[in-house]
């Protein structure tokens, strides 16, 4: 071995690589594919004559995503800072492109772009927003800690959320995008009281809506979203219509017992839970693997989020840390909201479970985000290399 080679190797050894996170991500991806096949094989063999139809498409997207993840990982994340403003503009344009002939409808909602491959612009916008706001918060520096700075930052998030909400009719993505920004701002500022009050205010507004729906002032005739609140309040009363999906998901969860019916043994996936491979995959996990399996899946997500916390807290600089916070916000929001929908804790809105639900765009952009986190983690300077030998590999 030549001298330069040896040096390079030494450098590599010193570099931190978060194998724990890699393992968790790969585990979730593989587990997701297994569950996707179990959940979707019945429906896909009926609809497409091929039980692995969904599995194949998802596996392709996952492979593409893993390649992109490694590419992004190898690139110094500071590179993206230069593209912060273009990221914002491109995100907005992509959403607007839905209105052009490139956009197309699936299940009555125009959320998709066909540019050779199908892309959901809202998913791209999430990555764009994470980069843009990480850069923006770094840019305004201490100003973010002023009320004006907070308001201005949040207001910058409003247009893109509004585009997603009104153009693609995608409330859940809008909530998540705004939630990501909100959490990034929350971390960047030292205050608590204001957020606490804001939180109370949001809950109060939501409560008012719920009460109005309950009183019959707002009905499903005004907006289907109010209908979803009606179904949420009393799924049995709408068992055949709005509450059907939720109720069938609850049946699946409730029939799983502690250890479930066994992998592949779900009965509810046989045409009863609509979109079982998509938003409702967690309910089938509960049915097949039981409460124990569901807790294990949630534990994997908690471990992943914990890794994000570690990486963010040890990041080389604030930009890197904020990127990780954004990714952490994204994934945790999506897991929490998905499980909350499936368990009818909140009204039904289409949110997928990261890494497990079917959806090519989602998994590709998620893996790009994971790539960004790896990129940040690779630049962590180890204070005590000996102590961390285990994770060094």
């Amino acid at each position, binding site marked *: 071995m030549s001298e330069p080679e040896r040096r390079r190797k030494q450098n590599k050894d010193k570099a931190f690589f978060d194998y724990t996170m890699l393992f968790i991500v790969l585990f979730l991806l593989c587990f997701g594919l297994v569950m996707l096949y179990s959940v979707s094989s*019945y429906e896909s063999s009926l609809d497409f004559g091929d039980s692995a139809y969904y599995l194949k498409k998802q596996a392709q997207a996952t492979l593409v995503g893993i390649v992109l993840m490694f590419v992004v990982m190898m690139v110094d994340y500071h590179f993206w800072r230069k593209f912060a403003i273009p990221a914002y503009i491109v995100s907005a344009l992509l959403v607007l492109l839905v209105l052009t002939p490139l956009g197309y409808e699936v299940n009555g909602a125009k959320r998709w772009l066909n540019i050779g491959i199908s892309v959901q612009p809202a998913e791209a916008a999430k990555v764009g927003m994470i980069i843009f706001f990480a850069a923006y918060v770094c840019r305004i*520096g201490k100003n973010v800690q002023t009320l004006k700075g907070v308001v201005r930052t949040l207001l910058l998030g409003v247009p893109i959320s509004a585009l997603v909400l009104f153009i693609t009719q995608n409330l859940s993505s809008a909530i998540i995008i705004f939630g990501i920004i909100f959490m990034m701002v929350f*971390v960047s500022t030292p205050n608590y009281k204001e957020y606490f009050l804001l939180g109370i205010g949001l809950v109060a507004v939501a409560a008012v809506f719920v009460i109005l729906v309950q009183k019959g002032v707002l009905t499903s005739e005004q907006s289907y979203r109010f209908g979803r609140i009606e179904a949420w309040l009393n799924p049995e009363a709408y068992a055949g219509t709005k509450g059907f999906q939720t109720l069938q998901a609850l049946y699946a969860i409730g029939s799983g017992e502690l250890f479930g019916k066994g992998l592949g043994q779900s009965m509810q996936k046989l045409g009863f839970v609509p979109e079982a491979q998509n938003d409702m995959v967690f309910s089938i996990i509960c049915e097949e693997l039981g409460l124990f399996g569901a*807790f294990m899946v949630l534990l994997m997500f908690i471990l992943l989020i914990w890794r994000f916390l570690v990486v963010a807290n040890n*990041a080389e600089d604030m930009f890197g*840390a904020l990127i990780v*916070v954004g990714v952490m916000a994204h994934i945790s929001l999506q897991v929490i909201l998905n499980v909350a929908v499936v368990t009818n*804790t909140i009204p039904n809105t289409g949110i997928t479970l990261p890494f497990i639900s079917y959806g090519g765009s989602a998994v590709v952009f998620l893996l790009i985000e994971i790539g960004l986190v790896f990129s940040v983690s690779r630049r962590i300077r180890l204070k005590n290399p000996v102590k961390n030998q285990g994770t060094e590999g």
Partner: protein
Amino acid sequence: MGRNRKNINVQKFTGSMQKKLTVLFLLILAAFFGLTIRLYAINRDNGEEYKKQVLSQQEYDSIALPAKRGEIIDRNGTKIAVSQKVYNVIVDSKTLNGDEGKYLEPTLNALFDTDIQFLYTRDELKDFIISNPTSQYRIVAKKQEYEVISPLMEKLGDKAENPNLKGVWLENTYQREYPYGSLACDVIGFVQGDNEGAYGLEEYYNTTLVGTDGREYGYLNDDENLERTIKAPDNGKTLVTSIDVNIQSIVEKHILAFNKEHENEYREGAGSKNTGVIIMNPNTGEILAMASYPVYDLNNPRDITGLDIKVDEEYTTQGNIDIDIAEGSSDDADTSDDAEGDEAGDSVSGNSVTAPAGSDIVEENIEVDKPKTYEEAYEDAKMEALNALWKNFCITSTYEPGSTYKPFTMAAGLEEGIFTGNESFNCTGVKEVGDHEIHCNNRFGHGQLTFSGALEQSCNVAFMDMGAMIGKSLFMKYNKLYNFGLKTNVDLTGEALTNTLVFDVNRMVPTDLAISSFGQGFNVTMIQMISGFCSLINGGNYYQPHVVTRIINDDGATVQNIEPRVIKQTVSKETSDKMVELCNSVVSEGTGKTARPAGYRIGGKTGTAEKYPRKTGNYVVSFMGYAPADDPQIVIYTVIDTPNVESQPHARYATLLTRDILTEVLPYMHVFMTEELTDEEKAELDEAALTFAQSAGKTLSENETVSENDIEEETNDDSVIVFEEQEAEKEKPEYKLDPVTGYPIDPETGAVLDPDTGQPVDPTISDLE
């Protein structure tokens, strides 16, 4: 500090930020914890309920495959009861409401573009589908035949042509059909409700006929592929009966002719209260024909047209007209007629035709809660009339046998050696028993009678003497040996139990013995009488009467052979031979002369029993006969309950009916004529030849149709049969009968034709030899 860039603007992720991030993490953890609790709570609070819900939803995915009910065929393979595949149309509202309801209109168009008889109108069905979006199983058309359903079936199969035809599927089931309508209705019975046999063979052999339903399940196999597995239905087994459709037709034809002839003759109503005929093979106990009157259509057993529905008088004053209109049979609901025929003791619902005199049997008087309204009273009366119609007179109704019991009395004395056959009796027209004077049927007395003369003339006084000679204990021992008071266990539903309708030897007084010696005072069923009589003339073997001879499975393999079963020996061969001799002379010399069909020698015994209450002029007249006289191959028992004539006590009504039946049945059974025909008889037969040829032609064409049915079951259609009948009748020339064999003669060749096959036969070969 960045290794590769020396940037003064680099900002650190500050301690306060790290702290807030940790707080955020904790908040996220709290949310996860909350969701975990929620998952646990769902399982704890609703787990059981949801588990049941999941299972109950699954039933939709398994479809019952109904088993085919077994057929009932006659001894020649002619189908009397068949099950035809029919289809129910099912609608799945959930699917039809899916995809913004775009399938609804095209599907409704496709459905109502057919000849299917739907239970709903198009608008009703549409309303139902829209207002019941979760319903996945609704039967919208029932029991549609293949011809009607096949256009829809084709459309459902062609998905490419009809992409929007969804949410409809077909479920097959079976419909019971009786190609011969009312033929042998008492023996066959019908099917009601959920494949449940009612009356006759359908009820007695229900478990054999019904089979086991199969099921089709959808499930995911180990490779996660959707698979359907079918547990095939176990089809019911087919009953091969000893009934001969042709003999049965002949019997029913003549019963009907008798009742039509005497209809409204003396009182309003049918020619008799009931007329029953059984033809049996004395050497096996097999029943060849069993019929009574009136009959009902097995394909429509609840049809009340022509039924006499008697509503209690207290309800008849009101609403009569309403009901008449509702039922559409204004004549039938008239309750004023036939008051005479419905006196006490002749209850329609009870088993007894008469209650025996001198015994303590009380007619069962079932007190039912009085219905409230006329409609309810009418409904009760209707069910009562239907039940009376459905019951099998030959096994369910009991009556006093009268003189047809006399051979039983005689055989008992002969068997015990009390009689030698050389006894003589003196009849003065009356005999005093105890404190009673019991009259002979001949009030002036028969005078001096020989042993066989007593039977020939059916002298009551002579038989009272015989009864006294036998004594009550021996008499009752033989009464029981002949199976009276016990069930014959014939394989039909509804056999009456007569154990309380016979005398108890310990309480029998001399009068009881006297009247029972000539068959009055105790009750019997027709099946008991004919089964007992068979043993008297076949060498003494009491065969269990039966209808089913073989049970075969769906593939045609025999599952069970029901062999003739000798229950007991009633009399010896010698006694039996003597009884044949004696009964032969009844027909050749005595009261049974009129029962003899031209060209044949037969034996038998007449009966005329006065009904209870006495002295009202109501009688049961009967004839028990067998043919041929020297080697009995069939036994026939004809009972006419209360003939609709001015003067009833004449066995002639029964003997003439018997003769009419035998005149056709014996040639059909290949029994050759042995007796010289008088010119008168020849002329009579020639006259009958015309009708016989027609009926023979009819029989032929029916047989042909049935054999076609064997090949192509699905095209079993009544209209085809009618059509063929007409064709056959046109083509068939009118045949004369050969006076020796009774077979039709081909007018062109002069050859004697077999009435079964239509082929010339060699007259020297007989089936009976």
